[in-house]
């Protein structure tokens, strides 16, 4: 019997596509960490099927199983039947939260793993990080889900909040050269509050290309961390706000330097929010079509890294963020890096493997997250590179944590920072 009004209904068709072949065992990072079938995509799909049918008691095991997903999309990318397990997990998390009468899956998981900071996420983060954090970071920002971390374990390295958020530093519109595209810059929480240098580099590069850059002050968190918590109401609220704000920019492109934000705008908004609100679907689709990663846009505009980048003699290795790789973006950043003077690109083993952050996965399962990351750290070290470049601030945080804990001095840097290193700001 199908449970009525379950969020799982919106993935009912997708659930049927899985043929249980097991191919996802080869590339699911959650499976690589836990080595148990409920953690693999196939297992989560099977459980979702049973939750949907209502023939499984919703004990802690279901929460635990559904928490073991990084929403990285690696399974979807390689699945012969393109089963969207990430989307299914989001729906299952939402369903599970509902079953317990809670608004978010985080709270539910928090109870299961008896983790108070998860149960009480926003408030606790604010208390510990102090009024400054509370004032600076809005209640809906995904950052709040990421920042109780230091208090979950002692060894964790986290970056500092910037003195002044990126959005506060720049006017809403910076005119460019005539004939060049009008670009809306979707900054994202990490580049706004933490790695502001990514925002600066992106802006500098867009200006270098003569683009008119619109940086809407009212832009919000993309909502991916909330999505990972099955908190679809927050996601929808954020998606609608961001949609309105970005539409108002009347831009040719919506550019991001955050792979995660790109993943939300590009894939998950239309899938998760669009499916529930058909009237929004078309607009979200139009937004998705305009959304573009900075490296890809630069390449498209004929950008030449020799003009603005490099300068140092740097051996660089590149990490593929899942949310770029699964969108098919692997060549562009490498091409740009290779063409950057002074940069020698060396490939690491398994550059395409997930770093282990997985949004809030890292909060639920820090040890497993770092277990996945350990392979990455080793691969980076084996290259002997001076720096590891990547296209996602989330990955940067995770890679830094792993490297620092290993006592390694390899720099972690965003691709755009290398490309813009010669531009004075």
């Amino acid at each position, binding site marked *: 019997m199908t449970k009525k009004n379950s969020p799982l209904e919106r993935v009912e068709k997708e659930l049927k596509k899985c043929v249980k072949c097991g191919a996802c065992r*080869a590339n699911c990072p959650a499976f690589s960490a836990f080595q148990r079938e409920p953690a693999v995509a196939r297992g989560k799909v099977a459980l979702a099927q049973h939750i949907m049918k209502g023939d499984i008691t919703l004990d802690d095991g279901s929460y635990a199983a559904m928490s073991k997903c990084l929403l990285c999309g690696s399974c979807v990318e390689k699945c012969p039947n393109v089963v969207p397990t990430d989307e299914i997990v989001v729906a299952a998390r939402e369903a599970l939260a509902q079953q317990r009468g809670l608004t978010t899956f985080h709270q539910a998981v928090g109870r299961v793993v008896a983790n108070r900071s998860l149960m009480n996420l926003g408030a606790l983060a604010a208390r510990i990080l102090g009024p400054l954090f509370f004032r600076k970071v809005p209640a809906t920002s995904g950052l709040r889900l990421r920042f109780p971390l230091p208090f979950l374990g002692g060894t964790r390295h986290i970056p500092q909040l910037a003195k002044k958020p990126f959005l506060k530093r720049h006017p809403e519109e910076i005119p460019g050269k005539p004939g060049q595209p009008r670009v809306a810059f979707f900054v994202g929480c990490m580049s706004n509050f933490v790695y502001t240098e990514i925002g600066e580099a992106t802006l500098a590069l867009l200006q270098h290309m003569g683009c008119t850059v619109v940086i809407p002050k009212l832009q919000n968190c993309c909502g991916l961390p909330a999505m990972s918590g099955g908190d679809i109401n927050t996601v929808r609220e954020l998606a609608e706000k961001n949609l309105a704000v970005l539409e108002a920019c009347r831009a040719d492109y919506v550019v991001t330097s955050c792979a995660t934000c790109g993943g939300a705008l590009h894939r998950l908004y239309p899938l998760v929010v669009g499916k529930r609100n058909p009237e929004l679907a078309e607009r979200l689709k139009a937004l998705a079509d305009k959304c573009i990663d900075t490296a890809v846009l630069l390449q498209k505009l004929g950008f030449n890294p020799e003009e603005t980048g490099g300068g140092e003699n740097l051996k660089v290795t590149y990490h593929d963020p899942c949310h770029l790789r699964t969108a098919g973006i692997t060549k562009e950043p490498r091409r740009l890096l290779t063409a950057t003077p002074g940069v020698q690109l060396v490939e690491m083993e398994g550059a395409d493997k997930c770093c282990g952050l997985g949004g809030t996965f890292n909060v639920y399962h820090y040890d497993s997250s770092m277990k996945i990351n350990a392979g990455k750290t080793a691969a980076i070290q084996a290259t002997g590179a001076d720096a590891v470049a990547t296209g996602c601030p989330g990955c940067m945080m995770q890679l830094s944590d792993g490297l620092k804990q290993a006592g390694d001095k390899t720099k972690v840097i965003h691709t755009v920072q290398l490309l813009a290193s010669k531009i004075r700001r």
Partner: protein
Amino acid sequence: MLKPQVMEQLKKIVGAENFATGAQELICYGYDATQMEFLPDCVVHPADANEVSQILKLANVEKFPVFPRGAGSGFTGGALPKGGGVVLVTTRMNKILRIDTDNLVAEVEPGVVTEQFQIEVEKLGLFYPPDPASLKFSTLGGNVAECAGGPRAVKYGVTKDFVMGLEVVVPTGEIIRTGGETVKGVVGYDLTKLLCGSEGTLGIITKIIFKLLPYPAAKKTMLTVFDSIDGAAQAVSTIIKGKIIPTTLEFMDHATLTCVDRRFNLGLPAEGRAVLLIEVDGDPDLIEKQAGAIHDLIQPLGLVQFRVAKNAAESEELWRVRRLVSPSLRDVNPDKFNEDIVVPRSKVPDVIRKIEVIQQRYDIPIVNFGHAGDGNIHVNIMIDKSQAGQEEKAHQAIKEVFQAALDLGGTMSGEHGVGLAKQPYIPLELSAEQIGVMQGIKRALDPNNILNPGKMFPA
């Protein structure tokens, strides 16, 4: 249903974190690639032969069934706990114990993933050829238990051809060694070969000694398109008759090509009716000559296209055609029965013609592709289970396909095994006497019928 005390004992043997009775675990260890589902009573993840032995000894005392499981990628339900019992998962036994470059042998635990093993031996310039399409996720234990094969079987053979010795926990719980690591060895019965393909019914494999080869110096990939299925089929025997044994000779029929082309637009010539993907490996000069010879041999057989990959990237591009087959098939119909008959190489055209007749008679699409080089054809019967009567029709058609293969001197299954899925058809191929001998062996080794009961032979 297992008694609580027995569950406690199992938990003690493997440790609490390697023992599960939660609904989620039971569901997730109750399926495989057949998409059938049965719930076990509990799941255990033993660490080694010793723990496996204790579990089986307990099973003989308490009389509960034990179902060995690797990755659960089997196509015939071999790992499924039909009737309930204990699923014994080999995932934790995942170490490559040694790779001996002096004697070209390696010893591994059964939970090692096939590709992982290949990567490690290749790092040392060595080669483990068996390449089931599931190699990225299937386990070596599962490969041995099913005697898995792949495209490279034409030249190199299947899994059993590389197994030199085993460590096995027999159903009554004793740990034995079979075979060894010498090329020759004739003392006693060849239990190693008996265990290969035994589908987890005669013992649980806890270590495997594999033979290895030097990694071939080079390979060459060719994509050849023919204007008739007969042309392609004749090409297979002509190449072999020409004393060339390619590494692979993969075959795709017209229905397959139409599926792939519709979705991925590969730009194959319109008059193409069948494709052979041919690969040769070995010394660079030799394979250069072989590629030329192959071209000359098959030219008169209605060859309409001959593409040779110049480098690894181009080779990958040609292989893409073959790899896209599976994902494309579902465009034909949502459900499929994937059978893997084998006929003597020269009989491939005959069996394809027979299948065409069956397809017309039952009016359901049948798509054929596979390893023509060794006569192993994947026959995909495409149906829509939601339509009344289709499944029944498919079963009838399958039976006729099997019969066609048997009539031509072939077998029902080259790779996937019997398990639960092919059980009803066993009497088509094996006589009552043959089944009797096999069941005698089973009874001798497993008097209490605790290891993977209900598989292979009809009850």
